[in-house]
């Protein structure tokens, strides 16, 4: 964690005012994703396939991420620009695909490994949210 792909991003950990992807909504998606990852991990360890809680959690997570996307698009419409547009949109596209991907693959795998898939993707999601915030706030790039 000492190195990030963009050196300039490392000094923007403090929440910059006005970033559309940094706030209560982003924090909520990170927390939800981590809680879901723990829940899915417990299910996988107990040899349980994905349950309703995991599926419902993924749905709520997807809604949260879509809301985050809308917030970013609104800010873009208002003339604001991310620090690193290429990486920002790359992460944004990836982010909204993640819960859907977890859901599709977990449906195909109704075993403990389905829960493991949801756990893995829910661990990746918070990382992508944080990277999204960094690529918005990075100056230059």
């Amino acid at each position, binding site marked *: 964690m000492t190195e990030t792909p*963009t050196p300039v991003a490392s000094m923007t950990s403090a929440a910059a005012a006005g970033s559309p992807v940094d706030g209560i909504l982003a924090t909520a998606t990170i927390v939800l994703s981590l809680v879901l990852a723990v829940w899915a991990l417990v299910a996988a360890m107990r040899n349980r396939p994905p349950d309703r809680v995991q599926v419902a959690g993924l749905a709520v997570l997807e809604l949260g991420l879509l809301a985050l996307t809308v917030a970013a698009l609104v800010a873009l419409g208002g003339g604001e620009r991310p620090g690193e547009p290429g990486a920002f949109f*790359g992460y944004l596209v990836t982010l909204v695909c993640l819960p859907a991907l977890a859901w599709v693959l977990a449906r195909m*795998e109704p075993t403990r490994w389905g829960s493991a898939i949801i756990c893995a993707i829910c661990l*990746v999601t918070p990382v992508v949210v944080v990277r999204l915030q960094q690529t918005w706030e990075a100056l230059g790039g």
Partner: protein
Amino acid sequence: MAETKTPRLATNSGPGRLLIAVYLVFAIAATSRAGLQIATKFDEAPVAYLLSALAALIYIVAAVGLARAGHAGRRIALACCAVELVGVVGVGALSLVDPDLFPDETVWSQFGSGYGYVPLLLPVLGLLWLWHTRPHPHPH
């Protein structure tokens, strides 16, 4: 943590599906990033961006190979994992020896440190999984 022992495993079920999931995540991430970089600022670091695009393509093909599970699928996955391993080790070493070669980050720079070393881990796990699910030499 009980290991289930099945004599013949398809590459696309159980832990294999988890591996495919991670491959798909990397495929989506690398494709969208490389696509946008090539579209918006290709001139800045053409080698790095083309390499990212190549890595993205290999992740996609590897995921498809693992998902198809048949004889051909296994070969495709094997080739992709081998190329990935050579790529991540080669580019990782080159990016340390001569940083000017890759002015912008690629998935494989510094052995994939920007991505939590997952790019280094993935082909190894892929090869182990292919080995674990190898068909028995006698068909009958």
